[in-house]
């Protein structure tokens, strides 16, 4: 099929070559025959041939006409245009090179950003009809997205009618062991029905079936493509293997598809939820650990579903008033929104910025082409005189810009293909769906469309100008001072003002992002990340059944770490700061006052620590005392709170010594005494203001918390800096204490801070570069217009100088011209930027999107650069010698 197509192209080219040869031969033979005739009339042979050639006329032209008369197809006509364009572009290599580079960079950048947009926002999700899939969260007064308890989920599942099915999803990060060393993996427990609902097909084996969710079903597990590759080297024989999850034996029955992202791409294993086998099935006030995902029935809107869920919720609340305290509603979010909502505005801004740079670049080229068209009016006039129609000339000009766009665009696509690794390094790793990044047909199609668009933008202005100008006059006046000149310079000033406006919009955005970034990076996270290394681990299921054994494990770590030179202190904690995905909070009340309504019960982040945690993390103890070794099960429970708790709930007195009731068990809230207050810490990210924290000593941890801490805890170590091989050291230390501990990745705390800024750094970097490029291009455009104007008015300036105008006056005249363009551009730019500000408001931090300071600074920057461009252009005017310029006319 393809071979046949190629053959037909080849044949066409061969045919073409043959026709060319025949035309040439025939015309040649005509000239010879004519010369023969002349020779017969007594003309000498050489003279006869010369005369025959002259009589014949332009051989090139007639050959062209012959080809045209032969007719040929659109492809042949197009190749002819292209050949023509190449010839004319070769004559001005400077312009061609600048144009190709501009277009390559512009198209490359736009296609690159589009490829990211395509991957994240455009490409279909792995689920069928994703718009019908909804996440459902329980809403509390202080947090719209919290979890449900198991009985609550079962009630919704059994009563709801708007959904085809409703699945429960809980995170499950067990230690994963087979014959190799145990490993801590991330995963979910999920209703088996979810797979049918999402229509996920397994990569290998099977997914979960209803059978798996039944009481007493055999233990099964699905593993992700990533885990399969990493741990099993993509061995097909993995199906049917027994593995050990948290001490429980399960059989691997399937490998998930690459794109499986529920709740996100980090998911490495899935096990069935088996809700009805769960011991907490009927414990109404058991832990909230589930969220729900459901598929709407056809013809049911999300609003209707939300209303039905809400009705069920209110019923449950009436039925179990004590158990569902603080749950005030439901949050329903489309699944796709959940994945991409936060990043959409950022990505689209970056994409628009890249497209704007391309536009500014194209306008520059259009400007240059305009000058060229004006300068070439004579050439074009001659072509007209020789019979070229206006349509043909327009086609010629457009095909020139098409050739440029094609070459530049192809280079741009190559850049993108070669640069995709670099691009992916630049992109923040937590960008959803970026793992599936690839350059697909959509991207290539987009690139082609972009090439056509760029060609059109670059070529349409000169072509339009051509249609408006009187070429005959150009021929008479020698291409100077024709009507097209005035029109083209007016057009160019418009274009330059437009460029300045666009550059200002980009600069303003970059300025706002920069201010936000600076604000955010100077934001105190509440701890000192310098020299702090962290490592996550899971203890084995057996042998760590109580607080004492966990404590004993830590003490061994501690004594080994203390012996290492350079380690200053170390501690354990349940969840580290700046961990966006980990949530743990409890409700508490002051012992001396209870909230007016149950739903007003305050909540706080809940952390289990060892005493050295605050010292290790550099969190200041502001009041009271730290935990000590004697804060154990034998002594009354104590707690340390952050100053936020003190401020919000103990505004009338010092919190130290106060008693609170903390609801951290399946039983009634426990009383404890506040012994200290520490500084606030940003637990989720840098943007969100610090919330209330409560810290409990590990030795006093309730028994219910043991499985939770055993499943995931962090060891943090403060070094005096300069320690190398720390990760290895920490890992080995843990494995030496107990080889069955599953160890996760180690990471310096400073990385967490960097990661928290990564997305902003990324968009700042890109928007900043695009703004810089736009600024440069706009300045170049301004320079070109001013210097072209000076060149055109060479004679006028010479005349003025000859008539006694001072050079300062000439300079003023030039600057005035520049200032008008600049002012128009800046005013338009401000108007656009202010109009668009609303769209980027969500990306601002600590800065108003109409921030006058940023706007003033970028306006000033743009003005300075523009005047610089004017000044450089004006130097040319300063060098005009009136005598030379007047004589040259």
């Amino acid at each position, binding site marked *: 099929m393809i071979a046949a197509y190629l053959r037909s192209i080849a044949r066409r080219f061969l045919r073409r070559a043959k026709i060319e040869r025949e035309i040439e031969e025939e015309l040649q*033979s005509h000239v010879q*025959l004519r010369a023969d005739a002349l020779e017969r009339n007594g003309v000498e042979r050489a003279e006869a041939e010369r005369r025959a050639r002259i*009589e014949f006329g332009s051989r090139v032209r007639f050959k062209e006409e*012959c080809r045209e008369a032969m007719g040929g197809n659109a492809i042949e006509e197009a190749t002819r245009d292209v050949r023509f364009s190449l010839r004319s572009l070769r004559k001005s290599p400077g312009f061609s090179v600048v144009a190709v580079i501009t277009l390559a960079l512009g198209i490359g950048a736009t296609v690159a950003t589009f490829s990211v947009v395509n991957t994240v926002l455009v490409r279909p999700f792995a689920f069928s009809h994703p718009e019908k899939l909804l996440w459902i969260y329980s809403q509390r007064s202080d947090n719209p997205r919290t979890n449900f308890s198991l009985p609550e989920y079962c009630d919704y599942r059994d009563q709801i009618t708007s959904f085809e099915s409703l699945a429960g999803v809980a995170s499950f990060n067990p230690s994963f062991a087979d014959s190799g060393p145990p490993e801590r993996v991330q995963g979910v427990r999920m209703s088996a029905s979810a797979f049918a609902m999402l229509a996920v097909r397994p990569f290998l084996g099977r997914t979960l079936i209803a059978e798996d969710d039944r009481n007493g079903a055999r233990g099964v597990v699905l593993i992700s493509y990533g885990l399969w590759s990493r741990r099993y080297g993509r061995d097909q024989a993995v199906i049917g293997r027994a593995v050990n999850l948290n001490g429980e034996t399960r059989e691997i029955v399937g490998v998930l598809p690459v794109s499986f992202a529920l709740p996100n791409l980090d998911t490495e294993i899935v096990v069935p939820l088996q809700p009805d086998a769960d011991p907490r099935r009927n414990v109404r006030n058991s832990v909230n650990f589930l969220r729900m995902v459901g598929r709407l029935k056809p013809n049911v809107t999300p609003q209707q579903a939300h209303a039905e869920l809400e009705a069920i919720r209110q019923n449950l609340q009436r039925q179990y008033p004590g158990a569902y305290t603080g749950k005030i509603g439901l949050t329903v979010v489309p699944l796709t929104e959940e994945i991409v909502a936060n990043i959409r505005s950022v990505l689209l801004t970056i994409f628009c910025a890249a497209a704007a740079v391309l536009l500014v670049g194209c306008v520059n080229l259009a400007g240059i082409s305009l000058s060229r068209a004006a300068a070439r009016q004579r050439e074009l006039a001659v072509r007209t005189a020789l019979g070229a129609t206006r349509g043909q000339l327009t086609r010629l000009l457009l095909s020139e810009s098409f050739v440029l766009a094609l070459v530049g665009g192809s280079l741009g696509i190559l850049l993108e293909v070669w640069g995709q690794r670099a691009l992916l390094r630049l992109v923040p790793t937590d960008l959803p769906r970026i793992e599936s990044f690839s350059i697909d047909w959509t991207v290539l199609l987009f690139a082609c469309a972009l090439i056509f668009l760029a060609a059109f933008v670059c070529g349409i202005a000169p072509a339009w100008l051509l249609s408006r100008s009187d070429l005959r006059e150009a021929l008479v006046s020698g291409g100077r001072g024709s009507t097209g000149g005035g029109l083209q310079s007016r057009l160019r000033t418009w274009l330059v003002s437009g460029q300045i406006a666009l550059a200002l919009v980009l600069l303003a955005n970059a300025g706002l992002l920069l201010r936000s970034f600076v604000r955010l990076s100077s934001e105190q996270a509440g701890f000192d990340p310098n020299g702090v290394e962290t490592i996550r681990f899971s203890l084995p299921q057996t042998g760590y059944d109580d607080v004492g054994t966990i404590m004993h494990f830590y003490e061994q770590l501690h004594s080994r770490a203390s012996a290492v030179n350079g380690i200053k202190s170390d501690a354990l904690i349940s969840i580290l700061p700046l961990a966006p995905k980990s949530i743990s909070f409890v409700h508490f009340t002051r012992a001396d006052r209870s909230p007016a309504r149950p739903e007003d019960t305050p909540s706080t982040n809940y952390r289990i620590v060892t005493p050295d945690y605050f010292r290790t993390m550099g969190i200041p103890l502001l009041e009271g005392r730290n935990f000590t070794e004697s804060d154990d099960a034998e002594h009354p429970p104590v707690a340390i709170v952050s100053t936020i708790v003190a401020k919000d709930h103990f505004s009338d007195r010092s919190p130290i010594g106060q008693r609170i009731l903390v609801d951290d068990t399946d039983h009634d809230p426990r009383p404890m005494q506040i012994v200290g207050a520490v500084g606030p810490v940003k637990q989720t990210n840098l943007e969100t203001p610090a919330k209330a924290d409560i810290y409990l000593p590990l030795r006093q941890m309730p028994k219910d918390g043991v499985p939770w801490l055993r499943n995931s805890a962090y060891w943090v170590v403060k070094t005096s800096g300069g320690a190398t091989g720390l990760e290895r050291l920490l890992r080995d230390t843990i494995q030496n204490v107990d080889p069955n501990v599953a160890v996760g990745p180690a990471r310096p705390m400073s990385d967490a801070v960097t990661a928290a800024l990564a997305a902003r750094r990324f968009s700042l970097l890109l928007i900043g570069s695009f703004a810089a490029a736009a600024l440069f291009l706009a300045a170049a455009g301004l320079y070109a217009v001013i210097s072209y104007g000076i060149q055109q008015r060479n004679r006028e300036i010479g005349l003025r100088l000859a008539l006694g105008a001072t050079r300062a006056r000439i300079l003023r005249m030039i600057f005035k011209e520049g200032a008008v363009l600049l002012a128009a551009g800046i005013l338009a730019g401000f108007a656009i930027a202010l109009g668009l500000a609303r769209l980027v408001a969500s990306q601002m931090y600590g800065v108003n999107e109409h921030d006058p300071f940023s706007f003033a600074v970028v306006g000033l920057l743009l003005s300075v650069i523009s005047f610089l461009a004017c000044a450089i252009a004006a130097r040319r005017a300063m060098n005009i010698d009136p005598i030379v310029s007047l004589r040259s006319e």
Partner: protein
Amino acid sequence: MSEEAELLPGTLDLLILKAVSLGPLHGYAVLSRIEQISGQRLFVEQGALYPALFRLVRQGLLRTEWGKSENNRRAKFYELTAKGRRRLQEETDWWKRASAAVSTALAARPQQA
């Protein structure tokens, strides 16, 4: 030179068909034949002949064959096809009617109006 008439637009094709109808000719001979049969009154710009020939070939009115000229040069010969012959007939009839009409019109006297 005053004897030479400028070709009316559209007549070149007709003349070529006529010239070739008398027997296969190569390009240069077509020119000579047109000059000859018009009594040296019509001259065709040499180069302009070829686009016209190519057009007629494309329309299927002429067919070509490479051969040898009378003085033994390799040349491309043009020959009328059946379709070309029909077209020549039609065009000739049309031309006669049209020129007769124009002549009549031009010969009109004031009292006839």
